[in-house]
């Protein structure tokens, strides 16, 4: 059974709806769901003011243009939540488990500070995908983020653990000050990737120019990448045989930090 919430009309100002999370919705009655609190600008109001509620069950579906609805699925720990369209900022931020599927695009800070679970964006994602909130040392600490489109700047900033995979291109400063974890950019990287990174891996399938503080090590076939790319293929990303079988240039950095991180760059086949 599916519990469906349908947005009646676009909010005038962004709606902060942390209540749109399976943890709050699963098992609740229609009246209880409609009474859950949301913030419309500085005004505290109810889910029922903006959403029509129908059906019931653990599988939650939210319909309508949610591009002005923030914090959808934030902090969720279990269950499955599907957004049938675009979603606003902070979707899945801090989530600890379960699955959040966005059938459109996602705004900035999607999956920021995530601890676990899976966030899938069928469209593109904004800035700070799986990123770090100001004042915090680490961003994403676990789980998987899969984006079928592009991602904005500073994807994986402060990443500590987990996997961020983007089918398209990732914007500037991917993995900014990342601590560990893995970012895979199937469509290539913007400038300054890995700036300030301490550990972890940034993988790109297109040529890139590492910062001057990265040092070339060798060209080889990283054994762990076979596991990761097969995982991404299972998650629906178009990983090619060339990427699976290919050789990668390993650049170690950032030399201004520990130089324990790496950028792996697929070598063009001769």
């Amino acid at each position, binding site marked *: 059974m599916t519990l469906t919430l349908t947005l009646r009309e676009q909010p005038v100002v962004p709606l902060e709806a942390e209540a749109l999370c399976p943890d709050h919705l699963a098992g609740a009655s229609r009246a209880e769901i409609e009474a859950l609190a949301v913030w419309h600008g500085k005004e505290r109001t109810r889910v029922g003011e903006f959403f029509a509620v129908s059906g019931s069950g653990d599988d939650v579906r939210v319909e309508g243009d949610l591009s002005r609805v923030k914090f959808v699925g934030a902090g969720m720990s279990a269950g499955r939540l599907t957004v049938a369209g675009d979603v606003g900022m902070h979707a899945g931020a801090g989530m600890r488990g379960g699955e959040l599927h966005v059938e459109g695009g996602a705004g900035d800070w999607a999956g920021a500070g995530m601890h676990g679970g899976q966030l899938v964006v069928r469209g593109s994602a904004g800035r700070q995908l799986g990123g770090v909130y100001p004042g915090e040392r680490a961003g994403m600490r676990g789980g998987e983020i899969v984006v079928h489109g592009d991602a904005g700047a500073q994807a994986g900033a402060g990443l500590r653990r987990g*996997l961020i995979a983007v089918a398209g291109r990732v914007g500037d400063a991917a993995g900014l000050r990342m601590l560990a974890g893995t970012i895979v950019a199937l469509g290539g990287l913007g400038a300054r990737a890995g700036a300030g990174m301490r*550990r972890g891996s940034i993988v790109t399938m297109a040529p890139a120019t590492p910062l001057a503080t990265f040092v070339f090590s060798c060209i*080889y076939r*990283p*054994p*762990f990448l076979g*596991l990761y790319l*097969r995982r991404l293929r299972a998650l629906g990303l178009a990983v090619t045989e060339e990427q699976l079988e290919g050789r990668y240039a390993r650049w170690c950095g950032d030399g201004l930090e520990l130089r*324990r991180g790496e950028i792996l760059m697929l070598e063009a086949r001769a």
Partner: protein
Amino acid sequence: MKLHGAEIVDTFAEAFGMWGARVVITAATPAWALEAGRSMTGFATSVIGCKCEASIERELDAAATPDGRPGVSALLFAMDRESVGKRLVERVGQTVLTCPTTACFNGLDADDTVDVGGQLRYFGDGYQASKVLDGRRYWRVPVMEGEFLVEERFGVVEGVAGGNIIIFARDHETALRAAQAAASAMREVEGAIMPFPGGIARSGSKVGSRYSALPASTNDALCPTLRGQVEHTDVPPDVESVFEIVIDGLALEPVRETMRRGLVAAAAAGASHVTAGNYGGNLGPHHIHLRELVP
């Protein structure tokens, strides 16, 4: 009772508990995977002399391995879970880490686990790095060839060891042919191994010896050459050679199934008798009666 003309002795194999793990080794080619698998399971015929029992379980297609490369799976057994962990660290460290192109993965989903990659990572001397994917941690250890990838934790279960069949024949050639046919049929069973060379032991042992330093010695009651010397022999008058096949499994059922296949194949290949070894029912909790295995 008779099967294909062979006498199936109404007795039982006495099996006991041993802890086991499954190791999946992958490599760039099937040959290198097999090389590593053979090396890792070498000198592991009997827990008495080798501290563990191990053998290759089967060869794996690329599609069946975690990293999409050809591989082998091997089972290793020891008397307790800690010993399984120690033996895995020793053997994976000395034979798989060192072997060109290999990677090493846990092949057993179990609640209980032992740390393997988490120990071997120190070979990286601080340059090792870990990756966590889908809840499993792997260690990347830099080596001269490139990188060795090993999973951190390996599942362990309390399995069943000491399943066995003993094959008699009227001449040596027939006995060996029957034992080989049995071993070949027995290899098809998943979750069980036969740790002796080619799966076959020619030197079944009895507990103890007249020499106090030895915990085990030749099973004189089953040696055809001693028929005229010993007070008691179990070798029938028309039998000239005897082989034993020992089976360890991750559970009782694979051991039973392996014994069943071996018994049938040995009988069909010319064995005159098939029996099994036991200790009068005093040692192991699992009694596998041959009469229950005859089709």
